[in-house]
């Protein structure tokens, strides 16, 4: 039984301001787009569940070590200073969503969004344990029995297992999996670890098992601002009302009567819809672009002997005025909106990849000593003291050679070679002198100098970085 909120709300008269929406039991659908969705589900979940198990040397390949403030991505070691990369990545994702939406509607929602992906997995479990849509609806109406308890119990058991494993996997990005499982089996999870495992598990269980389309309809902001990105040329799931209307039933193989549309009003497109809408009413904000109705309708059209595509991915412009609209791919994509989005996205993406791949494997911060401004040393030289924070942003031990320049007679007093263990940051105190001969003519006050660090990068090529600071001459 496909219950529609509208139909309930359509009853005129006094109505409550809140009401319980009935559970939607979407009919299982097979077809091109359903296969594509399962492909995406498989790919994304192989990555999500698989990545924490991959090791990179002694450590996980992907490891967000919050305690040590190090973020390991394969060979890269990111410091909190590299937050700009995460920020840019998020901007890239948002921009990507913009142009994909402008071009092809909500295909992210329909195929790759975790809400869709986990709902798909949970619905598959539901089908395995409780049967098809008809069987589930019958089960829902039937009184409690041993069989019902067994179906529903095994469903929830499997759901909880998947949810718990998802929560563990999520936390495994922060705590290496072997340690996490060891702690789990010995009941020594720290309160914060246990909280996040349970929180993420509960979110998966609740959202994919119970909330489902309610998340898309009432929580997701993307559903609400998609209208700002759609235009008549956006590729969306459309019902060809010119071809389908007026709808009406007809016998299998029967000729379409004159004046009758292709739609046989079988309501299967409504039954398969995970958000419970009727696509024949046109574009609605609830539509997540999953194309389940397309797969279903194509099968029905095949059976009744009409051409496929009564419901299809198309644009509003094309379905409303097919004669005038240029429906070619190129024309559809070569719109200013798409071109601007994609150009911005490409510029940012290239800059991001370039910045990340040419990111120096060593960072250096120069901090002037906080108590000693400058001092004369025996012999007449001027001494300034600095604390250097040298960060090894790679998975290998590195050696950094330091030098200073920027003033005549400037020299580094201490040993110039710093040993930087892999992924470690070290603080060292160094002294810089301006020799006696150059100290006298030097003007009192602050002078710009710079520290230069040289090392060999992972390809064995020389790399340098400079860090400006000041040298003070006392009065």
């Amino acid at each position: 039984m496909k219950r529609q909120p509208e139909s309930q709300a359509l009853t005129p008269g006094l109505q409550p301001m809140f009401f319980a929406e009935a559970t939607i039991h979407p009919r299982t659908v097979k077809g091109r787009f359903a296969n594509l969705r399962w492909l995406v589900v498989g790919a994304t979940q192989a990555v999500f569940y698989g990545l924490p198990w991959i090791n990179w040397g002694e450590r996980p390949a992907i490891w967000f070590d919050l305690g040590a403030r190090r973020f390991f991505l394969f060979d890269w070691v990111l410091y909190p200073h590299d937050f700009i990369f995460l920020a840019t990545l998020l901007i890239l994702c948002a921009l990507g969503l913009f142009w994909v939406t402008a071009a092809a509607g909500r295909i992210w929602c329909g195929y790759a969004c975790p809400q869709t992906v986990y709902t798909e997995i949970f619905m598959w479990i539901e089908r395995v344990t409780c049967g098809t849509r008809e069987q589930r609806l019958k089960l829902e109406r039937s009184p409690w029995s041993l069989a019902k308890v067994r179906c529903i119990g095994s469903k929830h058991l499997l759901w909880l297992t998947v949810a718990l494993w998802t929560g563990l996997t999520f936390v495994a990005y922060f705590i290496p999996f072997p340690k996490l499982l060891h702690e789990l089996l010995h009941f020594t999870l720290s309160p914060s670890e246990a909280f996040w495992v349970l929180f993420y598990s509960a979110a998966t269980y609740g959202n994919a098992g119970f909330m489902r389309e309610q998340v898309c309809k009432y929580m997701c902001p993307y559903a609400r601002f998609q209208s700002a990105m759609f235009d008549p040329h956006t590729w969306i799931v459309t019902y060809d009302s010119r071809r389908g209307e007026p709808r009406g039933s007809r016998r299998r193989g029967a000729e379409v009567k004159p004046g009758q549309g292709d739609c046989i009003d079988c309501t299967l497109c409504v039954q398969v819809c995970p958000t419970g809408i009727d696509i024949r009413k046109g574009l609605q904000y609830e539509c997540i672009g999953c194309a389940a109705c397309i797969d279903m309708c194509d099968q029905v059209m095949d059976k009744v002997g009409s051409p496929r595509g009564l419901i299809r991915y198309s644009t509003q412009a094309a379905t409303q005025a097919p004669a005038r609209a240029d429906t070619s791919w190129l024309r559809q994509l070569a719109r200013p909106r798409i071109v601007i989005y994609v150009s911005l996205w490409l510029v940012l993406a290239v800059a991001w990849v370039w910045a990340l791949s040419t990111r120096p494997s060593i960072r250096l911060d120069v901090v002037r000593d906080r108590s000693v401004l400058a001092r004369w040393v025996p012999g007449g030289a001027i001494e300034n003291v600095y604390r250097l924070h040298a960060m090894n942003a790679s998975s290998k031990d590195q050696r950094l050679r330091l030098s200073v320049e920027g003033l005549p007679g400037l020299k580094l007093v201490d040993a110039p070679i710093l040993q930087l263990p892999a992924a470690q940051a070290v603080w060292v105190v160094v002294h810089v002198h301006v020799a006696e001969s150059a100290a006298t003519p030097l003007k009192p006050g602050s002078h710009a100098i710079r520290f230069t660090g040289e090392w060999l990068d992972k390809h064995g090529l020389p790399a340098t970085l400079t860090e400006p600071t000041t040298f003070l001459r006392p009065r």
Partner: protein
Amino acid sequence: MSDFTSPLWPWFIAITTVLSIGACAGLLWWVARKKIHALNDNTTGHIWDEDLVELNHPMPRWWMGLFVVTIVFAVGYLVLFPGLGAFAGLGRWSSVQQHTEEVQQAKADAAPVYARLAPLTHAQLAADPEAMAIAGRLFLNHCAQCHGSDARGSRGFPDLTDRDWLWGGDPEQIRHSITEGRNGVMPALAGALGSSQDVLRVADFVLSLSSRTAPPDLSDPVQAKFAVCAACHGANGGGNPQVGAPNLRDDIWLHGSGRDNIVSIINKGKNNAMPAQKDRLTPAQIQLLTAYVWRFSNSATRKP
């Protein structure tokens, strides 16, 4: 609630909070019961700006559930935790208490490390990389503000690496300096020395001590004035760690070299203090810092 000057305010806050929660609950109760009139076209019949109509679209009931959860949470929170005026909460939680517990936990976590280091001598500690790494961080947090990151000090703040000790460089003396602090007093001695000419002569004599190999001839009338100084700085100007009187012969000038600086110190005196650290650091930490400071002048490498 000691921040408030009047006991009125805790009551004001408590009553406002309770009334607000009650008002929210009442509003929820009211809208849960309220019915609105929907027309045949599923609008409410309200029309604005000539043709703007309001669609009747009731919220899902779980949304109402979320509101109820926030109220339940608020009530539970205010019962358990401080928040309702001056009421401390049944859970007896306080930020001070939590801080104390976390400090105790951190101390307990560090205890095994200090337990391993406790029996070691200063020389052993100075050779222990872990001990020196801890001491280095302690030094940067507690000592470097005056003595500098490299422990070489600056004007007024002694260099800890130069083997010149105001109060003695034995581990026990260093430990005492850190624990109890030191207060070095040089009295103003212009009156005791005589005229300003006499002060200048004594200053010149003090300056000459650094390059002198032989002990001063105190029968010389000029040098005889130095007897006033010798009471603390010693007959030959070699200083006295018992009272923190500096050695005047080693060309190390804590408060500035040159005749003018010396004259100024003689005329005005000097009071220079090292604050006691016993209230900030544990004996175990002071033990590590002692070894750290001692190491500067007692190892091959003087680099920190």
